[in-house]
């Protein structure tokens, strides 16, 4: 590198705080920056399973040309939506994952449709599918056949139990859904109240977020990105297999490691945590606050903020606060609650922040931070100036879909950030464009 180039870098990323702020501010806006995988063509054939759409969305946000291939009537995923809420027949999750994509219809049950797909696959770099294992193969358009005409192809398959093994074969006729993925992968078993609370409170509970499908989608995208990296280096493609009934358990690791070392399952313990305390929710005067003060110095700070110093002696060290004696921890929960309900959420957050600033300035280092945060409702999150400054939300206005807002820009990168350029998802809207560009 020349001296001049080095100097440029110095100027650009110079050390002072103000320069850092300017540099960071520039990162919040992705417009006009390079798109990193704009040379990749992705075919998304997910059917009735949004984890495939989630996966392809991520590639589309990073700049890939994503072609969503649907049967002529449209993908049934279009109709998977909370309480039937839709715009022109398109549900909320499908709108959310219709980022920067092209929409094409192909009838894969017909020979002609499959032939066209093969032609597309020749020019594609990544394929995503969620059909039952082996179906694409039986149609003659599975990994085995497509990798022959396109050896560099990365083939991502998402299914409940994966593409290989006995269970995958036995359960081939059972389709996928988010709630069943949550159940099978250990999400539901670990949410819910303590055994004494009575039914149905102590039942396993579904997470209100699509943990099954979103984690599968993100993991598929991650696996595909790794596979594509290998293709770029060697020219060799491969198959990436995601099992939605497992992706959560493998992501977080707890179910397996605890199941092995304890040789039994954890009970459901409601709002408490297994490793650290206090770490959970408390009522305030006007809502709910989350408090995390598990480290000893944070805990001491919390006691000071809440006027609970007299309990310091009983709960001094992390290991005095291990939540394994649940009655004891319930008792302590109530002691904290007595104090938190005296203040509004805003007051509590402010008290904690004031203390943090004081402790950071004090000579006694490591003064601790009582970590308190208001549990946010979507409306308050959306109006939060922090996220506005970070451009976390974007409003869209589409002829067909109308006006709506979406969470976007979830990764800020200085050179090649992901972004949402358009949201449009008419069935077969890009048929002509794709035929012109890829099938001529």
């Amino acid at each position, binding site marked *: 590198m020349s001296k001049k180039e080095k100097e440029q*870098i110095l100027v650009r*990323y110079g050390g002072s*705080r103000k320069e*850092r702020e300017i540099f960071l501010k520039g*990162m919040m806006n992705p417009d006009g920056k390079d798109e990193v*995988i704009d040379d990749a063509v992705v075919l998304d054939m997910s059917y009735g399973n949004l984890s495939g759409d989630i996966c392809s969305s991520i590639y589309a946000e990073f700049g890939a040309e994503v072609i969503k291939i649907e049967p002529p009537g449209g993908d049934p995923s279009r109709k998977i939506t*909370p309480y*039937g809420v839709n715009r022109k027949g398109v549900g*909320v999750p499908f709108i959310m994952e219709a980022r920067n994509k092209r929409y094409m219809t192909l009838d894969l049950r017909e020979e002609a449709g499959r032939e066209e797909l093969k032609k597309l696959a020749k020019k594609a770099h990544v394929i995503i599918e969620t059909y039952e294992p082996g179906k694409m193969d039986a149609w003659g358009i599975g990994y085995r056949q497509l990798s022959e005409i396109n050896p560099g192809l990365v083939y991502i398959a998402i299914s409940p139990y994966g593409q*290989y093994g006995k*269970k995958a*074969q036995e359960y081939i006729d*059972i*389709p996928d*859904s988010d*709630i069943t993925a*949550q*159940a*099978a992968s*250990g999400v*539901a*078993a670990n949410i819910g109240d303590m055994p004494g609370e009575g039914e149905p409170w102590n*039942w*396993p*509970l579904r997470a209100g977020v699509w943990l099954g499908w*979103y984690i599968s989608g*993100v*993991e598929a*995208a*991650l696996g595909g990105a*790794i*596979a594509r*990296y290998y293709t*770029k280096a060697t020219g060799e493609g*491969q*198959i990436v297999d995601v099992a939605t009934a*497992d992706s959560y*358990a493998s*992501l977080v*690791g*707890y179910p*397996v*490691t605890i*199941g*092995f*070392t304890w040789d039994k*399952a954890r009970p459901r313990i409601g709002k408490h945590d297994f490793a650290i305390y206090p770490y959970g929710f408390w009522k305030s005067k006007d809502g*709910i*606050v*989350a408090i*995390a003060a598990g480290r000893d110095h944070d805990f001491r700070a919390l006691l000071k903020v809440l006027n609970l110093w007299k309990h310091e002696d009983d709960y001094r060290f992390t290991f005095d606060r291990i939540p394994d004696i649940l009655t004891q921890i319930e008792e302590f929960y109530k002691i904290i609650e007595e104090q938190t309900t005296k203040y509004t959420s805003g007051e509590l957050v402010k008290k904690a922040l004031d203390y943090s600033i004081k402790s950071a300035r004090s000579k006694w280092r490591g003064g601790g931070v009582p970590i308190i*945060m208001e549990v*946010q*409702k979507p409306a308050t999150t959306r109006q939060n*100036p922090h996220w506005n400054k970070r451009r*976390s939300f974007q409003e869209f206005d589409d002829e067909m879909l109308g006006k709506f807002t979406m*969470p*976007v820009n979830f990764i800020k990168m*200085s*050179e090649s950030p992901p972004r949402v350029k358009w949201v449009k998802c008419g069935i077969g809207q890009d048929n002509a464009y794709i035929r012109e560009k890829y099938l001529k």
Partner: protein
Amino acid sequence: MENYFDYTKKIFDPAKTKEKPEVFKGLRVLDFTHVIYGPTAAKILGQYGAEVIKFELPWVGDLWRFGVYWGSFWRHSSVCFHFVQYGKYFFALNLKLPKAKEIILKMAEKADVVIENFAAGTTDTWGIGYSQLSKANPGIIYLSCATYGQYGPMRFFPGWDLLAQAASGAIALTGYPDTDKYYKLPDYVGDFLPGNIGAMAVIMALNYRNKTGKGQYIDLAQAEALMRILPNFTYESITNEDLGRAGNTDPTMAPSGIFKSCDGKFVAVAAATDEQYKGICEAIGRPELVNKYKDTFERLKAENAKELYDIASKWVGSSNIDNLVELAKKHHFAIAQVEDDYEITHDEWRQERGSVIVFTDEMYGKLMLPGPSAMLSKTPGRIKWLARPLGYHNRYILRTILGYSDEEIKQLEKERVIGNWDDRPGIKPPVYYDIAEDPMFNYK
């Protein structure tokens, strides 16, 4: 043609993982992270072949070395720490001392990726931020993981998984409607998922560097990454109503829910599509329901979904799990039993798949761990060793990467620039292990 499942079994065979190539071989990652969120991003890269060097403070160590469930250590170590940190090199370096900074800057010249998850701007004040390291190595990719990100008025707020869940609004979606009971998403998933997204961002940045030669800075906010997966913002902007909580049913599918079968098992059942709805109606023995709610959106309306939920609940309650699964196979709707930790650990299919691995470590012995969430046929992720005691690889790192001599290393030890453990579990080796004979710890 060969049977599809014979073919896939052959290409995915977990027994052959070790023989297959590693994607990120030759890549070096400097990992200044702690607890779960940042370390996960680094671990993923290590799992696929990168050389990940984890920096910790000597005699202090990563907080999560002591993050154990219900206070019980496993062989003087934390199993979660093993899971988050496997396959890394453990280097304990006292950042406060100028000599340590020198070492880091030297290593940054030879590294590709840096990952940190301190409070916003902390590494810059320490002199090892992007502004400083990119001067030493302009090609460097620098990932900063913070709960609220590096920019914006809330950037200095401290955060944990729980706080990210609260700030993003994820918590407000889980639980039963019209109650004041709240539940967090379990297992610190608010750390693990953004950590994986961080790994993906780094891979994208590597792609960009391969194309243009330029490194870059990545600012990943944990809460923002969680917001990306929440449907409520879009829902609310369309309906002007709060999405709220739905308890044990998924409002996007009807019927759907977690029910109790007559043999006392919890079962999740769902009809994601019209085809599946038809199947479930037939299985219940109420084919007239198919026509009653022919329109999907009509079916999903709260009161109709409730009716179907009640029907499904009663039906599941009168049947046993085996029978239900057979019906699902015949009529094609989604079903799964709720599995707890023990069942997941001992599921045969997960072990066959390589999703649950019985790993035998040289230092710690046998531990069951999950495999990667995504299985790659040609370049699978793998576990090479579990976490190691604090400062275990000090000598190895200094010898191989920086070429320090024995005397220089001894001098650094003497000046307490590098160090290792004290007598606490979590940072020291297990008692039965003879560390004096360990060739890696005493690397020549």
